[in-house]
């Protein structure tokens, strides 16, 4: 018989054995399916949570971090960066912005903006918005359906222009080209400069330390920072570190409330930018504004790790699920063993008729593999059920929990590996069966 014929024969034997031991087989497939379902569900969520929001350029996007705290503060620097990240005072953010030492740079804060529509009977409503500077769109690869962003000149002139998300354009203008129309935001008139194509990086890295949501459909409104601040926009997060705070003049207050991001031409330029940052801080220390020389410049993924964006819950659930899978595998080992020892006589006959130990071993591994594939199919069903349950949970990432192609493949890879590992011991025991004693007792 050729290899293919042999394989076909083993498949046939396996199917026969499954029919004979229906309950044992069902138990094995069930156990493997449960374990794999749980593992894949949690892995899919973990992958979603720890994904790269800008895969094409995240290695070139950096978060400059400096320490504006007063001399009296005893807070350890690294802890501060973990808490505040790239949050800065207005003065420092503007200094870094105007220094233009990076390919692109943007300063931003989050706000909830009141939008008043001209439609009679429609109440004003609040939308998540980003107040930022002109490079934001090109730096973060947000592309336009209609129109464009605004210019650096618009920033300095405090021009009243806005960019809106496609979903807000659908809501307000039924999806029509609204460029040039006037939108009333926070009781001021703004001209719509552009409408974005759907754009929602997950996780929403730029908002994690600004008090925004980490996941979801994205922001509705993008406004020039200078103009919005002049109009007294209420930004989401204000952290103050010294006394004498005047809530109405945050531009000069000892508070961090805007964040800065930079894009470098090459990831290798980070060293040069960090030197620039250190020099800037040294200069501020000389001026008496700063007291701590430490700086940091994590790239986008480094920043997400530093800000601990992936919740501990998700990681703990994944650990638990794999612990569960391990138990299921041990369980499958036991059941496979029970099944193969029950078939000692059959093995004895086959050995006596000339089957080698290798043939018996292969036969049992084929059987395990089939259990694995069946377990994988069932695991897929359980994983879909699990993800369906997750989509009905209150977490903000819930609606994004889906199986993609890679997780689909991973399901069967994990199932096959788990079942083949589980099959090793029983197969080894099976091929160790001596033919003679078994024949005697038939």
């Amino acid at each position, binding site marked *: 018989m050729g290899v293919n014929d042999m394989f076909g024969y083993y498949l046939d034997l396996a199917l026969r054995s499954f029919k004979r031991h229906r309950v044992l087989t069902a138990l094995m497939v069930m156990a493997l399916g449960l374990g794999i379902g749980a593992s894949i569900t949690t892995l899919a969520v973990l992958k979603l949570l720890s994904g790269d929001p800008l895969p094409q350029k995240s290695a070139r996007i950096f978060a400059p971090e400096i320490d504006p705290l007063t001399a009296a503060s005893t*807070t350890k620097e690294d802890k501060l960066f973990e808490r505040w990240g790239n949050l800065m005072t207005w003065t420092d953010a503007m200094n870094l912005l105007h220094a233009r030492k990076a390919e692109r740079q943007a300063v931003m804060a989050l706000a909830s903006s009141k939008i008043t529509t001209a439609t009679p009977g429609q109440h*004003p409503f609040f939308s998540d918005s980003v107040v930022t500077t002109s490079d934001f769109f090109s730096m973060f690869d947000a592309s336009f359906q209609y129109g464009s962003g605004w210019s650096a000149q618009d920033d300095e002139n405090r021009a009243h222009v806005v960019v809106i998300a496609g979903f807000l354009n659908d809501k307000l203008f039924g999806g029509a080209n609204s460029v040039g129309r006037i939108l009333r935001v926070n009781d001021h008139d703004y001209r719509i400069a552009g409408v974005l194509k759907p754009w929602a990086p997950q996780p929403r890295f730029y908002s994690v330390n600004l008090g925004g949501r980490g996941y979801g459909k994205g922001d509705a409104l993008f406004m020039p920072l200078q103009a919005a601040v002049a109009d007294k926009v209420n930004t989401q997060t204000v952290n103050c570190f010294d006394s004498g705070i005047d809530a109405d003049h945050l531009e000069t207050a000892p508070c961090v409330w805007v964040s800065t991001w930079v894009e470098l031409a090459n990831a290798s330029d980070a060293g040069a930018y960090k030197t620039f940052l250190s020099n800037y801080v040294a200069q501020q220390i000389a001026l008496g504004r700063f007291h701590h020389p430490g700086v940091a410049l994590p790239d986008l993924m480094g920043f997400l790790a530093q800000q601990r964006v992936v919740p501990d*819950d998700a990681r703990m659930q994944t650990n*638990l699920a794999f612990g569960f899978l391990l*138990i299921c595998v041990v*369980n499958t080992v*036991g059941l496979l*063993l029970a099944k193969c020892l*029950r078939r000692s006589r059959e093995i004895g006959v086959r050995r006596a008729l000339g089957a080698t130990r290798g043939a018996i071993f292969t036969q049992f591994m084929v059987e395990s593999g089939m259990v694995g594939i069946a377990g994988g199919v069932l695991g897929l069903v359980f994983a879909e059920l699990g993800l369906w349950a997750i989509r009905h949970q209150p977490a903000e990432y819930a609606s994004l929990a889906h199986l993609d192609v890679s997780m689909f493949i991973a399901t069967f890879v994990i199932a096959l590996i788990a079942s083949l590992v589980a099959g090793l011991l029983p197969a080894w025991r099976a091929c160790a069966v001596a033919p003679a004693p078994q024949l005697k007792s038939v």
Partner: protein
Amino acid sequence: MHMQIQPILAALKHHKLATVLIAMEIALACAVLCNACLLITNRLSAMHINSGVDESSLGFIALQGFDPAAARDLDARVAAGLAGIPGVESVHLINSVPFGMQAGAFGITLDQAGKQFRGVPEIYLGDPGTPQALGLKLVAGRMPEAGDYQPIAQGYLPASSNVLVTRALAGHLWPGENPLGKQFWTGENQFRVIGVVAHLAVPQYDEEGERGAEWTVFVPALPPASLLAGTFLIRAHPQDLDRVMVAAKAAIARIAPDAVLDHEWSDTLPALRTKFFRTDRAMAGLLVGVIVALLGVTAFGIVGLASFWVAQRRKQIGIRRALGATRADILRYFQTENFLIVTFGIVAGVVMAIGINLVLMKFFEVPRLPLWYLPVGVVALWLLGQLAVLAPALRAAAVPPVVATRSV
């Protein structure tokens, strides 16, 4: 029990592999079970946090989008309008409530120079009568009186105020000392403790944060103030609360058409509490699901192996029966055997449970495994083992003595 354990141990030696496998399953189940239970109780105890206020009588209304310059007029109009709703006992201006939005966290120091930093408690601001409306329980000192309510000339807080602190915050700031009359600062704002309340939870409790769940200060204040505008505490009889809140939300559109109701935070306190703990409840539910599946898989594994085992030893059982063993003897034999194997597993499992707990403690915010979990887990697994082996053991006991003579 007149059964001897020696022969069972001798028999187990011939089935080392199956014995080791069952013991291993039990060990893994024990280790995961203990730690999953710990995570569940951890969640549940966090959910039972004492807010220190009369939750069932309280509701919160938050408005946005009004002109700050007109806040004083708006607040007066809304407060009067809400107070007119039948069933409303009182309406107060307050910056936030437990389980409500994050409103005012300030770093504090024990000295005026700002050197002795002691953390970032949450500061509640409320107008006259708010502590009584909240239902705060005083354990020392006195409640703020009319003269303690200070206007806010500049910034977020009164320049100097007589405040209430929680017992927890007092213990953190001045361990073992009488907190009454003690002072602390945030920047140039000075606080003096006039009363200590039993409990008052922060609005958004964060387990991973550096701050305690009850590091809170109540600052008596007079509006207008930037933190004290457009947010209202409504007190009503618990039976009226839901109806009152529906009426209140409807009334806002009429009283203040220029403002926008913040639907996320405008709700009764019981509803805000439920919302706040949604993810914890979901996580606890998921863990319960895992535990049930775990026990099920382990039990089925034992059933599978024990059935096979019984089938393999039919002849041996038949011989014993022929030699005079009763059905009860056979049943007890298999049960004792299972008990022994499970015990081996449990011993290994307890060691693993403690090991896993130590690893979790190192990488996650998980407390030490309380020792009383172990005996509970042990008893649960013993029972599980006995239940799982019952069906196969009964089948073994049903083997007639004649089997012994049949196939020899």
